């Protein structure tokens, strides 16, 4: 236990990644260094997890003024919400280095960079710092996709980059607006995310700013109708990039909504929550139905990932403790199930040289361990009781029903779609008659199996005994709804009649 733990976790991978980029090293050295550094981050993250006391406040705080005249600071800290995204990225990244050994040096270096930036984004407690890491996170993805992607990589790269940057720039305007509002109300400049929670903005400009943030986060999640970059990017990207995008980066979009949007725009958020929740439900159904029709298993998983992000979004927009806790839980569950499915898909693609479902069949008899692990991750992804997916989805549906019956029912229904395409995929790829491409499918090697074991165990443990995890999450989520009226309220324009309309539910 030493000071600046979070800073070390952010900058160790970034510095190591930069050195790897510039130093003339062989690809094996790069892989070993990458694995070592990501393991070191994992060890540090376990230290953080053990030391985390679940007070509901920020812990492990670091504060160094950066631009004092504007109140911009190098301000880090984590609470029960960021802790789990931090843990997910620290636990999952080392696996990539074990599983994929034949990549170039830049690939491993960029993975380290993206890891540091993602940890930075979830630890940042200052809006400007958050924005910096948020944007830096995209650059390695841009290079990994453009340099090591599939045959149609350049259009996919441009699509994701322009899409995300457009969103982020809108967020930049919105966060400038927040800071100016805070300055106008208190006479003090600050970009602290915590202090933005004291604001309760409403009105025309506030709605615009809310949408600025929401579009940025909706593109990253991606929320319907901003998902169109996803199938191309997820399919063309090298496996590790798809994995990072789906398992962690998408979650940082959700995290942004919880951390920045909900506290600062309480009233406006409540006004539009139903609208956003419907967008989540429609996205779930739409992506789920599209997934059924896919012939390419990576594309199918891409749509499935988007569909499951829809349920996480519904959890956020339902605005009560159950749904929000479920969301955080589901974030980890989704990372360990759907995210990990992309790793399996990557192995499948490497060994069979095809992405078409029709070319595969009968793998279960060739590779029983692979099939077993795939099945567990898949069942967790569809939310079978006993796996981590069940707890999260159950809590979210519970919260959604409390929020709005229609949303709850539709969410529950669209889960059935998920079961349909997943089981059908499993049937076609793992059972049925063996095809030429999958005839000599090699099972997981002992090292590879060992790399997957912790995640598979995590899926089962989180499904059977969720209490220790929920205990760390709940104080932070409860904080959001227990807070008294905002300290710095604007001269509010909400009439009692309007207030009754708003479906805000505290607790």
């Amino acid at each position: 236990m030493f000071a600046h733990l979070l800073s070390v976790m952010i900058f160790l991978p970034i510095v190591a990644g930069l050195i790897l980029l510039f130093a003339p090293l062989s690809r094996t050295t790069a892989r070993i260094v990458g694995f070592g550094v990501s393991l070191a981050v994992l060890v540090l993250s376990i230290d953080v997890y053990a030391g985390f006391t679940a007070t509901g406040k920020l812990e492990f705080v670091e504060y160094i003024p950066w631009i004092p005249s504007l109140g911009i600071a190098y301000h880090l800290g984590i609470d029960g919400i960021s802790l789990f995204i931090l843990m997910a990225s620290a636990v999952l990244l080392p696996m990539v280095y074990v599983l994929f050994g034949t990549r170039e040096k830049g690939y491993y270096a960029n993975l380290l960079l993206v890891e540091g930036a993602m940890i930075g984004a979830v630890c940042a407690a200052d809006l400007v710092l958050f924005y910096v890491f948020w944007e830096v996170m995209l650059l390695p993805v841009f290079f990994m996709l453009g340099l090591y992607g599939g045959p149609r990589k350049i259009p996919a790269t441009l699509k994701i980059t322009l899409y995300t940057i457009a969103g982020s720039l809108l967020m930049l305007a919105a966060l400038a607006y927040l800071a100016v509002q805070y300055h106008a109300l208190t006479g003090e400049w600050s970009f602290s995310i915590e202090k933005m929670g004291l604001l309760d903005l409403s009105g025309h400009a506030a709605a615009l700013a809310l949408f600025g943030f929401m579009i940025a986060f909706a593109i990253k999640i991606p929320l319907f109708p901003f998902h169109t970059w996803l199938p191309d990017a997820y399919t063309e990207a090298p496996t590790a990039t798809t994995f990072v995008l789906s398992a962690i980066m998408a979650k940082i979009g959700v995290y942004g909504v919880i951390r920045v949007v909900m506290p600062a725009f309480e009233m406006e958020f409540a006004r539009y929550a139903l609208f956003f929740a419907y967008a989540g439900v429609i996205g779930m159904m739409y992506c789920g139905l599209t997934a059924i029709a896919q012939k390419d298993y990576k594309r199918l998983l891409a749509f499935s990932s988007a569909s499951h992000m829809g349920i996480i979004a519904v959890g956020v927009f339902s605005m009560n403790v159950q749904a929000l806790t479920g969301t955080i839980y589901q974030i980890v569950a989704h990372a360990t199930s759907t995210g990990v499915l992309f790793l399996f898909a990557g192995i499948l693609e490497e060994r069979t040289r095809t992405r078409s479902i029709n070319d595969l069949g009968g793998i279960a008899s060739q590779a029983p361990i692979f099939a077993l692990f795939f099945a567990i991750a898949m069942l967790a992804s569809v939310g079978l009781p006993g796996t981590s997916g069940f707890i999260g989805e159950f809590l979210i549906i519970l919260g959604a029903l409390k929020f709005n019956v229609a949303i709850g029912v539709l969410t529950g229904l669209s889960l059935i779609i998920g079961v349909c395409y997943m089981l059908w995929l499993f049937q076609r790829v793992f059972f049925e008659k063996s095809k030429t491409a999958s005839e000599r499918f090699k099972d997981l090697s002992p090292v590879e199996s060992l790399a997957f074991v912790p995640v598979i165990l995590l899926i089962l443990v989180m499904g059977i005994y969720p209490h220790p995890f929920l205990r760390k999450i709940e104080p932070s989520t409860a904080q959001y709804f227990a807070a008294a009226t905002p300290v710095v309220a604007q001269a509010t324009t909400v009439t009692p009649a309007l207030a009754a309309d708003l479906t805000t539910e505290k607790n």
Partner: protein
Amino acid sequence: MTNDFMLLFPVILVSLGAIGLMLAATSRCVQIEQAAWACGGLFGFAFLVQLAATLTGDQALYSSLFNDILVVSPFSKAASLVILGCGLFTVCSSLSYFKKNNFSSTEYYSLLLFAASGMLLLTMTRELISTFIALEIMSLAIYILVGYDRDNVLSTEAVMKYLILGAFAGAFLTMGSAFVYGAAGSTKFALIGNFVATTGFLSNPAILAGSFFILVAFLFKAAAFPFHAWVLDVYDGASMPITGFMATALKTAIFAVFANFLLADSGLQQGWVTFLFYIAILSMFMGNFIAIGQNSLKRMLAASGIVHSGYLLIGLVALGSQPVPGSVVAFYLAAYAAGTLGIFSALSYLSGKGEQWKNFDDFKGLAKTKPYTAFAISIFLLSMAGIPPTAGFMGKLYIILAAIQTGQITLAVLGIVSSIVAMWYYLRLIVTMYFHAPERSFAEECPSRIGTVSTLVLVLCVFAISLYPIAL
């Protein structure tokens, strides 16, 4: 009086150096390289002097010189630091550029110093006549530098266009000054401001017409809409280092005097704010649409210069909200200068003899053969596009904060939309450099060490400027 000269020391240093170098050029025993080193040394020394003066703080007592004609403020100090830095890096990129091209002579470096001394005066001047004189000192030197490659048709065309249009702009400035003097009875910014404050902006047609003409002259030199048409051809015709110098130092000087003019006459600023609002928007979008269509990198950078003028105009519209006047504009200028100079410094040694490689397609696969240069260029492009953690991002953040604070939310939003559009052409070069297979070997250019070192230093500058806190 001695204090006056102390504050003027950088200007005196640079202009005496210019004269000295011009005289020395008549002698046969001065080599071109020696002149270059002398010129670079002068810029470096003046930069350090100015830096020392900036860091020791502002002595308000002596800050106005020569009966208020010249004023040294934190803003003018920051702007002259940027100009001197630009001069230094231009000398470095010239050195590497003239390894391949052979039309340089000793006078080239003397003219650089002359141009810089005019620019330094422009940052300090608070009076219309001296504005005109400083502007002409700068412009005359720049005209010659643009047309320095006498055998090149493009270069000759560029100087012709620039000279004639620039002379028009100068005429507009004198005409405007005459009108304003006729109405206000003074050419000092402060007294004009007092006059406008007491009699009102719209009541006097001479003030209205005069200030309009002055604005036209400034907007022409700053390459803002609708006076942007010359930029593409002139930047394209000038040699790489000079294009870089014009895009950064000249723009800094013009925006410095522009900001000083508007700051001293807040009545005028209020009067013209709507006009500037539309000019800013149109500059940004016009520049973007021109830049998207370009195949030549140099012309794309010229067009993106129009866009950045648009951003700087946002800063001028939002001048009122800055406790330290012009700090946002100065910061943006420094950030923009670091990025732009960096690209031109890299292009100076990449473009080869006679600038034969300056199109997007010529840089296909650069990252494979010259990974460090490609990385540096990417950093500069990301800075110009405003992606953190580069200087361009902080500049953009400050501009947007200032705009929102003055209530110009529309302007802030349109600025954001424009930078989304701009991503397209900045990314295009990065995609070309990284994701396409090389079509030529890039073996012809052996980059001179000075070129690579100055590019590297500019990369560091891009990050250093972004970390440097300013007082908003």
